């Protein structure tokens, strides 16, 4: 023993099991002026966990641009808020539930949806859409099928029951996710702009009220689990996964909406990671106040729960509120109408301390601000990811273009996701305008002719190859996808999924990705308003591909001025907009056709990105584009095939002679769109005027896709290729 003090019953091993290192434990002692007891140790453990404290990432997250004239609330609250005009605000955030989903996919994913929904309706917003960004391991890996089935069923099981449409998302498969799948769930909500609720507690003496489900023993130490690597014995962590009840969530949404329409609420916070501990801490900390909680009054599901268990439980569907004292009965009546628990569990004080009482004893007494402010912050060592050489198209072998198209379109990463999104109710609420499968989903603002467009994007293989370019590309692609449907991109939420930050090369990926994201956000006026960091996505020392998943929202002012990727009719001209060099490095052509994953990823030229995107948006506004699709994974050939399939109309294009067919058809140059128009002269003239590269490729029509002299394929065969992989894979 080194003289470090320990309370009775606490050993160095117990401290270690709580994820605190020696320095952190010493800091806890310094703050308390004594050794923490078990309850206090548990509180330090969760509050200082990577998941709750962002201790490895904070320094870098601060570099992201978070402001714009339309940003009402940036990062730091339950969700970000932007002004969308006409007295309305959009509230959104994306959050990971990676670790629990790997251990118990159905409940892990379901509670991920529940948690992000609560983050949004806590702010006073009615959720109007869910999206999800999923990453799974190699399809050949023994766990992958089980994880896909469980995660998709869990997302559907929760979202369908609460009656919020799940309208979009993305899925990748890669062997780096074999030991750590990623489940990133996003919710978008809408609130009256003058009725946004926050977690800032005010009013000494005001009651602290607990509502929702009862507290059970599930999910204890979930936040700590999500802050460590996995190893072979991860299965043993199953008891740390929470169990969701979407029915209660639905009641909680309605009860909160009803209460929020009154003037009873001072502050409100959902109980997410670290449950009652972090919710009460955050509220008091934001208000600069103290709290007294009577743990005997917390509604418990099980007998003889200890203060430690009550404070650390991550039971779902619970909220903490500060009410105006004379309004308690209004709130109580509403929650009882919805058959939810309602209990006054404490009150606000001016002491700046959290005091927990149980059976007439004080079981914990901690200073709030020092604990929150002294949360460790690390400037972890990092190394820059070495740059990869640019791969010349001439060094990449040419193959049969039609076969390559089929190979890429039918690959796990590119094939139709219908098997997934048909399990999600994407039409409930009767405001879904653009369903899953397009560039961005569109959801109408209820009772109006306006809408929000939303998307999630990231190309992890680009981030792996060049974190800065990859981070930049993830933002740019989200912006592009919103643009392609005619929306004005407004803001993003980021879900940073990385490996172990204690390894300099992983930290280097994080730093690089942030740098690229920052550049893109600044160039595109696209601020980050909320986000989440998930580190330690590693198993036995093997990290996932760095995955900064981006969720983004844009505004549509007039639903008459939108477009989709579906070719709308025959005899339209196809025009390619943006610069094409034929970039095959890091492309799907390379990976799916040639089984190679080398080369630098395509760079994003931000000024050009902006110019082309703004041009496209204008074109759509003026009604010049009857169909529009951005070019991304797989390049031009894939984009065109997707447009043909979505509209069930064929196309024939000619290929330019100054570039090799494989580079033209499958190159993944950034900042490009393909449009179908009945007014090609006008579109070309406008492009010329705006300085945007434009090339007429051919016409729509027929029932097949003709790629110049490279070959032709019927839509029937193309559809079969596109639609078959996922259902076939999942039916085994």
């Amino acid at each position, binding site marked *: 023993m080194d003289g470090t003090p320990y309370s009775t019953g606490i050993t160095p091993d117990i401290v270690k099991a709580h994820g605190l290192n020696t320095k952190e434990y010493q800091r806890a002692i310094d703050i308390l002026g004594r050794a923490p007891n078990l309850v206090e140790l548990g509180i330090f453990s969760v509050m200082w966990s990577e998941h709750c404290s962002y201790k490895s990432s904070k320094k870098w997250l601060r570099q992201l641009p978070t402001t714009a004239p339309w940003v009402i609330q940036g990062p730091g609250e339950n969700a970000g808020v932007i002004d969308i005009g006409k007295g309305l605000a959009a509230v959104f955030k994306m959050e990971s539930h990676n670790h629990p989903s790997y251990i118990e996919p159905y409940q892990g994913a379901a509670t991920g949806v529940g948690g992000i929904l609560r983050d949004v309706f806590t702010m006073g917003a009615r959720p109007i859409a869910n999206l999800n960004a999923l990453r799974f391991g190699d399809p050949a890996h023994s766990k992958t099928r089980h994880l896909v089935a469980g995660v998709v069923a869990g997302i559907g099981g929760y979202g369908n029951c609460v009656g919020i449409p799940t309208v979009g998302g993305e899925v990748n498969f890669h062997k780096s996710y074999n030991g750590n799948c990623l489940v990133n769930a996003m919710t978008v909500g809408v609130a009256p702009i003058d009725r946004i609720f926050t977690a800032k507690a005010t009013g000494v003496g005001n009651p602290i009220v607990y509502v929702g489900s009862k507290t059970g023993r599930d999910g204890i130490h979930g936040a700590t689990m999500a802050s460590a690597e996995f190893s072979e014995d991860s299965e043993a962590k199953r008891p740390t996964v929470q169990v969701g009840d979407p029915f209660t969530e*639905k009641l909680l949404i309605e009860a909160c909406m009803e209460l929020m329409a009154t003037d009873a609420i001072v502050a409100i916070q959902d109980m997410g990671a670290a449950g009652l501990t972090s919710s009460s801490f955050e509220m008091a900390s934001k208000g600069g106040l103290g709290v007294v909680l009577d743990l005997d009054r917390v509604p418990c599901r099980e007998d003889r729960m200890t203060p430690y268990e009550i404070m650390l439980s991550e039971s779902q569907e619970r909220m903490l509120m500060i009410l105006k004292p004379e309004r308690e009965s209004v709130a109580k009546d509403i929650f009882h109408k919805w058959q939810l628990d309602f209990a006054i569990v404490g009150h606000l004080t001016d002491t700046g301390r959290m005091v927990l009482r149980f059976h007439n004893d004080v079981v914990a007494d901690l200073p709030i601000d020092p604990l929150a402010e002294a949360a460790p912050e690390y400037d972890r060592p990092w190394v820059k990811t070495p740059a990869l050489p640019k791969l010349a198209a001439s060094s990449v072998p040419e193959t049969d273009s039609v076969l390559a198209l089929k190979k890429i379109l039918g690959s796990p990463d590119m094939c139709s996701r219908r098997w997934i999104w*048909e399990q999600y*109710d994407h*039409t409930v*609420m*009767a405001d879904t*305008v653009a369903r899953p499968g397009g560039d961005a989903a569109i959801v*109408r603002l209820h009772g109006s002719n306006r809408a929000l467009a939303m998307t999630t994007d990231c190309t992890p293989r680009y981030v792996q190859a060049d974190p800065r370019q990859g981070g930049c590309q993830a933002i740019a692609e989200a912006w592009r996808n919103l643009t392609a449907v005619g929306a004005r991109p407004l803001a993003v939420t980021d879900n940073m999924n990385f490996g172990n930050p204690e390894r300099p090369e992983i930290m280097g990926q994080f730093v690089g990705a942030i740098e690229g994201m920052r550049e893109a956000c600044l160039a595109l006026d696209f601020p980050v308003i909320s986000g989440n960091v998930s580190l330690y996505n590693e198993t036995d020392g093997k990290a996932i591909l760095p995955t900064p998943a981006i969720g983004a929202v844009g505004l549509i002012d007039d639903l008459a001025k939108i477009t989709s990727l579906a070719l709308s009719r025959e005899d339209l001209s196809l025009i390619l907009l943006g610069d094409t060099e034929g970039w095959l490095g890091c492309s799907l052509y390379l990976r799916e056709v040639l089984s190679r994953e080398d080369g630098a990823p395509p760079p994003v030229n931000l000024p050009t990105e902006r110019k082309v995107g703004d041009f496209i948006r204008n074109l759509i506004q003026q009604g010049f584009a009857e169909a529009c699709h951005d070019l991304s994974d797989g390049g031009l050939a894939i984009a065109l095939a997707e447009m043909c399939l979505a509209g069930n109309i064929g196309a024939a294009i000619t290929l330019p002679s100054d570039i090799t067919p494989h580079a033209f058809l499958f190159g993944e140059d950034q900042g490009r769109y393909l449009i179908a128009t009945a007014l090609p002269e006008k579109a070309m003239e406008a492009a010329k005027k705006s300085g945007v590269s434009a090339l007429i490729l051919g016409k729509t029509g027929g029932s097949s896709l003709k790629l110049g002299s490279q070959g032709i394929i019927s839509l029937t065969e193309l559809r079969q290729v596109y639609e078959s992989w996922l259902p076939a894979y999942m039916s085994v």
Partner: protein
Amino acid sequence: MPLRVAVIVFPGSNCDRDVAVALEQISGQAPLMVWHAESTLPKIDLIVLPGGFSYGDYLRCGAMAAHAPIMREVKARGEAGVPVLGICNGFQILCEVGLLPGALLRNAQLKFICRDVTLKVETGQSLYTNKYETGQIIRIPVAHADGNYFADTSTLNELEDENRIAFRYSTSDGKIDPSANPNGAARNIAGIFNKNKTILGLMPHPERACDPVHGGTDGRPFFEGLVQALAA
């Protein structure tokens, strides 16, 4: 005389607003939203049991809603001839409460299914289907995990003999075959009437196909015909 419609709201209903919006757009009258804990209804022209997950679908879809306080009144009114429309979960509740025969089982493929389906209107002669031609093919979304209609053979024969099948899942060219059946429903049944055709239960959601932004408006004649017939 304005149209009086009651939409029953159970804990877990989630299509109550959608159907109320559709009815209000077409009739100009906002329906009365009635909480499940009520036990009486005013004079009413139509009762709607909306879609959703009443009571979380716990125990069995619709089973607990069938015992909600308001359902005693709904049952009495329905039996007395007041039109009752049950959509999706509402159809499940109508079967559980005995206003319609049969039951809705878990989808044959054991998964939730959300997509547009094509339906054949089996009869254009009812309160609900009078704006459609008999045999017309319409496209409407479904969204359910338990839409696999089941009844014994004699009940199915009786439904057919009495012309009480409202809609069947069909191919877009009108064929009633397994390829058009999204959930394994007996004889491709998507919706049925009671003996007087005053009560209809159906799995598809016509309220989600009422507005051009929905990508289809084949559900609109459903409500137009219903509103007109009730007003007549």
